[in-house]
């Protein structure tokens, strides 16, 4: 069991890094608390695999420290870190029985046979593998194999943390949710620090209590699934979380009004004052498609937009709009009228996010 601390950690694959872009991991501080269920989420190339390899010990960081319960482990090889890993493809011995596969990590460290038996039975019960214990691993289905893989990680009591690297990729879509539930049960039962690495928002948000979103070698937000959705801390999080992602409008103050290009936006005084007070030329307002109010006729304080087209997604529709040349997407519920030709939009102030130099800035909604 361990708390994992990353202290002024940075990593580059280049011998002479010159600019921040040369770093796969830009300098960061981060703590994974003992017993937490965490996800590391980001697109390919964001640095999440590099970070995973640094935590597991496959890679030594160029600078900074990795601490397990306060103790520096930078130079410790993976086998001395007591970290279990579960990969995309199940890592098991095909010719062994399920029982022997689960027992292997314990026998490897000369655990007494009665203790081995006790742990194997306990882990098999949680994973619902008891009935398969005598079967050869090669005869299992893909999801059973992946459960054995997880079991091999869980069986040792001295494991500090379990790292999951896209573990459900090879699982049938209809079975995925059952394994997701199993993972949550395991976490509650064993209270082990778990870090789940994925590029999939559903995997991350379903598993984790807190998600670290990585972008260009940095953690741009560390928050709950709800925080990532309702208050993305960075424009990338707004774009990456949610389908479709957040709408962004570049804004500036002209003649005392908030303008997006040539379009005057109907927003409250609080939004105006916040935009006026921002010391940057890179100012954006963000609003999620779910939170744009779409009316089929003019209403007070609404802006007229052109409807490009709308798409019925079954349970709701997405309307593609342009507001003074800016493209926007809005979500319309099934029982709401779908606009044609023109629509009138309102941006509720409390649903607008202000982004200065791509990061969210809080302000008073008046």
């Amino acid at each position, binding site marked *: 069991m361990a708390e994992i601390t990353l202290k002024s950690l940075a990593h580059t694959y280049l011998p002479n890094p010159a600019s921040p872009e040369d770093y796969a991991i830009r300098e960061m501080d981060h703590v994974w608390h003992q017993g937490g269920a965490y996800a590391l989420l980001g697109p390919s190339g964001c640095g999440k695999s590099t970070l995973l390899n640094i935590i597991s010990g496959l890679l030594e960081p160029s600078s900074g420290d990795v601490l397990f319960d306060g103790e520096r482990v930078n130079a410790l090889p993976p086998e001395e870190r007591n970290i279990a890993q579960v990969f995309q493809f199940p890592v098991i011995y095909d010719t062994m029985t399920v029982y022997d596969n689960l027992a292997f990590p314990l026998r490897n460290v000369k655990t007494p046979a009665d203790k081995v038996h006790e742990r194997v039975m306990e882990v098999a019960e949680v994973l619902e593998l008891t009935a398969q214990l005598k079967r050869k691993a090669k005869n299992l289905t893909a999801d059973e194999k992946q459960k054995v893989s997880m079991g091999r990680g869980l069986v040792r009591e001295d494991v500090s943390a379990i790292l999951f690297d896209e573990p459900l990729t090879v699982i049938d879509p209809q079975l995925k949710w059952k394994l997701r539930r199993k993972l949550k049960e395991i976490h509650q039962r064993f209270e082990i620090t778990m870090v789940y690495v994925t590029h999939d928002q559903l995997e991350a948000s*379903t598993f984790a209590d807190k998600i670290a979103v990585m972008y260009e070698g940095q953690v741009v937000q560390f928050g709950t*699934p709800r925080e990532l959705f309702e208050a993305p801390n960075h424009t990338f999080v707004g774009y990456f979380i949610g*389908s479709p992602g957040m709408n962004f409008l570049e804004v500036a103050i002209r003649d005392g009004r908030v303008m997006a290009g040539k379009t005057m936006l109907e927003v409250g005084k609080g939004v105006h004052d916040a935009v006026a007070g921002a010391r940057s030329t890179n100012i954006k307002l963000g609003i999620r498609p*779910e939170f744009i109010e779409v009316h089929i006729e003019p209403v007070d304080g609404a802006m007229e937009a052109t409807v490009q087209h709308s798409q019925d997604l079954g349970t709701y529709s997405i309307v593609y709009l342009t507001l003074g040349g800016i493209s926007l997407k809005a979500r319309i519920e099934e029982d709401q009228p779908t606009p044609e030709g023109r629509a009138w939009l309102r941006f509720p102030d409390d649903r607008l996010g202000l982004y200065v130099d791509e990061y969210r800035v809080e302000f008073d909604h008046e």
Partner: protein
Amino acid sequence: MSLILENIDHVVGGASHISDVNLQLEPGSFNVLLGRTLSGKTTLMRLMAGLDVPTRGRILMDGEDVTGRSVRKRNVSMVYQQFINYPALSVYDNIASPLKLAKVSRAEIDRRVREVAEMLHIEHLLDRLPLELSGGQQQRTAMGRALVKDADVVLFDEPLVNLDYKLREEFRDELRSVFSERNCIAVYATTEPAEAMALGGNTAVLHEGRLLQYGRTEDVYHRPGDILTAEMFSEPPINIVKGIISGSEVTFDQSLHFPINDDLRSLAPGEYRFGVRASHISLKPQAKDDIEVKMTVDLAEISGSETFLHVHNDLFHMTLHLEGVHEFDVDAPVTLYFPTHKVYAFDRQGAVVHIPTHLGGA
């Protein structure tokens, strides 16, 4: 150019892969083949392409029988799940390759390669080799090769499976706009109902080698002809419960009673299976005739902006599709509201006998 499949059977080594498929695809149409793994999507595409010859039936292109004609003599192109490019050729030469084979002039090749590259946003990568590119860019290159030769039929076999969901979102939007300007027939295979909805056009639902239903995508979704189509074309799955209509009452699973409403009154007394979309069950009452049901949470799956809530009680397991992020602990109690006026009904053979009134009824 129209494409007609007539009474197609395909048997491989004694096993039936396609049975009695009839399908007519119109010029300029975008068509989705929706079905689970091994439902026959790839087999059907291979027959359309001329890579395989059906055991029985005819394939007509523009009225002409092409059943036995090989892929080389048909004007078709295909994009696969794996990013297939010539590794030693630049992106430019990869895209140009079908035109070079067809002995198109160099000036014309150059014009068309650049046009397609621009459409797919890879015009700045033309000098690169495929392996120097990201997965999304490699797949764009493969698509460029399929689109450059002006094929009559363009086939996509789960082309986005190996890309992350943000790239998929962007690709889908682009694909539809690319094909809206073309007169060819596009056929796109996917296992994901949400992808079929996002692509729009027409959808053919396949199951175990049989065609269940073909029509405008939103019609097939909202108005499935039978229970299997409703199940195949829903993600999360439509909730199905057994029930009985007896005079003035409806009973679900022998325990949940409610008075019959105008929606279901036209149905004769008897046994039915009822279907309720995951998105139509709610955590708050939506109408006065909603039924309140107490359940236990199995899992809240959160997709970023939506939540799939799996719940159960002694009688059934259900899935709810909720807007927004709803965090629930495993095994937490939850009360949900079941909409009695948004119910599909299927007879004992599985044929639809009632469609919710707000979707046009039936």
